[in-house]
């Protein structure tokens, strides 16, 4: 039995669960617990199958499915295995959470959700193991459709229908680009097997066309500028477990596709592709983080943060391309490992945070940051696990987000040897931009956590908020635990994923990883740089414990509880805290040129002063609305033809016939 069998088995299992779940009409609670709980086992199996398949020999199979002359080819190699593992780890947590989440309502018909959810999962796995362009596109479309239906679960709300339509539109524009990219890649051989495509030697011009189409097509799914607009609309619209899957896993399938096309299917990599990807990635990341800082809806904030993180991933991918194009393969391996590490990290902490917002929404029925606050006292489990996610996504040591950022910084710093003086000037600027993005991410996450979980409750209804249920807690702890493990043992993780740079770039980090013990992460050589999260944690914990004991022993541990210090102005209330708008205000002011601001200030004489501010995406007005207007005008011209009278259409037929008679005499 090969390792492909369990993967395909899980796909079948999920499809079967979905169909049975659709057919079995039992009460909501038991239904959710049964089917989503069973679904979680599939994720668990995939996580460890993927882990086992990392570094093993590629395995392929032909499935007796598909069209007569176009059977489905599947294959698992290290790259697929890594993303299957990522999907497994994230979806285990999300499914367990969903079992508790959908039990309590939220969303539409549970039987339908069960089908869509499991089809969504299964199609994502098929995208990852597809070995021909045909199956890839089928799975890609199934994934887009299943997630579209999940996004519009609450389809009675008009905004959600709009968000769903926008998502579907962008997904399909992207899919067309991917299809065209495969069309270029097959080079007139009419064979869409990846194994055949690999043998095609494209000219540099056509290779660039294929790469650019793939970058656009996969970028539309990953949320790169300027096709990011669906993300902040669709993520908040979907139920939280679905947002978690979309943000945590689905965005990564786009990265998988990008890596597959540019490093596996294409033979040549040109340096300017990397520069393009790096610049686009940094710009996307900056855009995402600046918008995240001014959001007032917690799920929109997280959606913009996803844009930021995908931008970072794209920047890492760009660095990999640059290094690889200049045959600096060791550095390319480092950058690629950092890119993959960040994908894995983001899958874990973003799922965790989206799930936490789900618990918060269930407990409070509020999504707006302005109506939350003080939940650390009502929801200790959610608050504690969300704190881990917050610190991880803010890139703080010793958690996992820091590891990938550290490696990316090292890759940036090691780029001094590039034999291109223009690039040498560009790289410091890129490093600076990356540093700024990382620091702003910290700002955003403190805002998110501080406003939702800390302070006084901003609404009286929050007093009755309850902590998440047992299943939800298990899911949150599962994801938070992996954030910690990935932060503490980076060398073990890197050794496990080392076969991917080996496969795609032909160079691996094995030598530098084996030079030191597993506790010390190094970049290239220990004297160049090293970082040990274990020592970090041990020293910090030891100092905390020692300080605590010393203070208690030599002094005392007495404490009195009193009212907060009001600075002599009594009447402190929850409305005096910073609101989400207030917390984001400095960023709004500094980066004002990036936003489209609409502000309404009350005059001092207003009896009922009302402050309103609206922040919109400039790109929407600069790019999308002109396209929409153009489309509208074109259809108006076409509309002149459509008079709606039968005589007119008969005249058209007559004219066409006459024309044909004249032309084809």
């Amino acid at each position, binding site marked *: 039995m090969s390792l492909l069998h369990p993967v395909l088995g899980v796909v079948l299992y999920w499809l079967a669960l979905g169909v049975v779940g659709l057919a079995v009409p039992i009460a909501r609670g038991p239904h959710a617990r049964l089917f989503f709980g069973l679904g979680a086992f599939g994720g668990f199996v995939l996580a460890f199958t993927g882990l086992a398949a990392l570094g093993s020999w590629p395995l392929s199979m032909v499935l007796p499915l598909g069209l007569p002359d176009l059977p489905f080819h599947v294959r698992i190699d290290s790259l697929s295995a890594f993303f299957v593992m990522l999907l497994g780890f994230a979806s285990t947590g999300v499914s367990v959470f969903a079992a508790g989440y959908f039990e309590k309502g939220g969303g539409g018909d549970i039987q339908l959700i069960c089908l869509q959810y499991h089809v969504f999962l299964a199609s994502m796995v098929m995208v990852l193991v597809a070995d021909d362009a045909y199956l890839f596109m089928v799975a890609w479309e199934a994934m887009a459709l299943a997630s579209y239906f999940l996004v519009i679960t609450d389809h009675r709300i008009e905004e959600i229908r709009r968000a769903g339509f926008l998502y579907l539109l962008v997904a399909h524009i992207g899919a067309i680009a991917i299809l065209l990219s495969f069309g270029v890649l097959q080079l007139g051989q009419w064979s869409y097997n990846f194994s055949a495509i690999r043998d095609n030697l494209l000219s540099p011009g056509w290779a660039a066309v294929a790469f650019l189409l793939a970058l656009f097509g996969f970028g539309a799914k990953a949320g790169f500028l300027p096709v990011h607009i669906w993300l902040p609309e669709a993520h908040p619209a979907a139920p939280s477990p679905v947002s978690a899957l979309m943000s945590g896993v689905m965005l990564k399938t786009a990265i998988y596709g990008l890596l597959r096309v540019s490093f596996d299917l294409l033979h040549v990599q040109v340096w300017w592709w990397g520069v393009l990807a790096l610049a686009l990635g940094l710009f996307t990341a900056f855009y995402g983080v600046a918008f995240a800082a001014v959001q007032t809806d917690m799920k929109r904030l997280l959606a913009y943060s996803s844009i930021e993180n995908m931008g970072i991933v794209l920047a890492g991918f760009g660095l990999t391309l640059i290094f690889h194009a200049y045959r600096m393969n060791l550095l390319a391996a480092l950058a690629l490992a950092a890119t993959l590490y960040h994908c894995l990290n983001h899958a874990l902490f973003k799922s965790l945070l989206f799930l936490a917002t789900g618990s918060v929404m269930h407990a409070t029925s509020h999504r707006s940051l302005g109506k939350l606050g003080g939940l650390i006292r009502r929801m200790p489990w959610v608050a504690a696990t969300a704190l881990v996610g917050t610190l991880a996504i803010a890139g703080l040591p010793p958690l996992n987000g820091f590891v990938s950022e550290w490696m990316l910084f090292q890759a940036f710093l090691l780029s001094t040897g590039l034999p291109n003086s223009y690039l040498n000037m560009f790289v410091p600027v890129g490093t600076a931009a990356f540093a700024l993005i990382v620091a702003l991410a910290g700002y955003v996450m403190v805002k998110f*956590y501080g406003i939702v979980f800390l302070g006084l409750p901003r609404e009286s209804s929050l007093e009755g908020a309850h902590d998440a249920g047992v299943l939800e807690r298990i899911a949150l702890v599962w994801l938070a635990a992996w954030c910690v493990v990935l932060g503490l043992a980076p060398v073990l993780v890197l050794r496990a994923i080392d076969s991917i740079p080996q496969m795609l770039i032909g160079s691996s980090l094995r030598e530098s990883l084996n030079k030191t013990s597993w506790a010390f992460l190094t970049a290239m050589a220990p*004297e*160049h740089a090293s970082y*040990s999260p274990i020592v970090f944690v041990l020293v910090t914990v030891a100092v905390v414990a020692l300080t605590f004991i010393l203070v208690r022993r030599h002094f*005392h541990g007495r404490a009195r509880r009193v009212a907060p210090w009001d600075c002599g102005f009594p009447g*402190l209330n929850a409305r005096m805290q910073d609101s989400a708008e207030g917390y984001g205000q400095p960023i709004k002011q500094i980066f004002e040129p990036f936003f489209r601001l609409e502000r309404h200030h009350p005059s001092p004489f207003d009896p009922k002063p009302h402050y309103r501010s609206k922040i919109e995406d400039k790109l929407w007005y600069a790019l999308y609305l002109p396209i929409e207007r153009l489309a509208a005008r074109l259809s108006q011209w076409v509309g002149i033809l459509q008079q709606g009278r039968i005589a007119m259409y008969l005249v058209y037929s007559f004219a066409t016939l006459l024309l044909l008679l004249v032309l084809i005499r």
Partner: protein
Amino acid sequence: MIWFDLVSQLLQSLLAILLAPLLLGWINQCRAWLQNRSAPSLLQPYRMLRKLLEKDAVIAHNASWLFRLTPYVVFASMVLAASIVPIVATDLPFSPAADVIALVGLFAVARVFMALAAMDIGTAFGSLGSRREMLIAALAEPALLIVFFTPALIAQSTALTTIVEQLAHRQLHLYPSMAFAAVAFVMVLLAENARIPVDNPSTHLELTMVHEALILEYSARHLALMDWAHALKLMVYLTLGIALFLPWGVAQPGHWLALPLAVVAVFIKLALLGAGLAVLEAVSAKMRIFRVPEFLGIAFLLAVLGMLIHFLVEA
């Protein structure tokens, strides 16, 4: 040998922890002289710490565990930072645990915990301080990273010990990239340590305060730990400045006889830098909070310029 290293590591950390309040006392004394006041004793910060440690802690009703944990985390982060920076010798057993990037991360950990704890009680001042602190940090942190990257590129390493060893053995002449980095570093130091042009360490109950607003709710032992950590942070920043820009005299591995000399050198440098800081504070006025982003933007630009100059001229 490993034990010897560990002992010297512990000695260095203890020295930093115990001497940090003294540095603060020295700066206050210099400032008082410059302002023509009679100065408090050099040991005044120690007395304050002792007083605070002996008092009963007063905690708000709704303070959560995060609020009580934060002083310990902040203090521990600063102790770890002080253990990483090569103050007197470059062969520290802890130094492979963190390079300059991790050091910046360590400062960020302390800051994020402080900012979160400040929001925990839900007073207006707390969240105001938290917002301002995070804003200053969001602009100062990248500048600090870039300041570190210039010497890191020169030494081809981000490990602090390697950087210091390399820099201490360069020929003594002016490197333009390092000059830019040094100016940027001083600006970041002022901002991150809540010193005068950016924040006023002796202010209270003013709408302009940043750091004091963050720790407004803390009292007794928690406040003592916060204050101590703050003093330690200033110490770490000054020793970092010494290590990067004035590294001469630091003891090389295996040169045990050079150690006493190195200690004396560090004392002299710290005293001079402390006095310089006092002069800087005496001659400048606190700027409006809205000007701070400009100030830090200049620091960021200077740091990037330094790095670019290294790429273009010196590489």
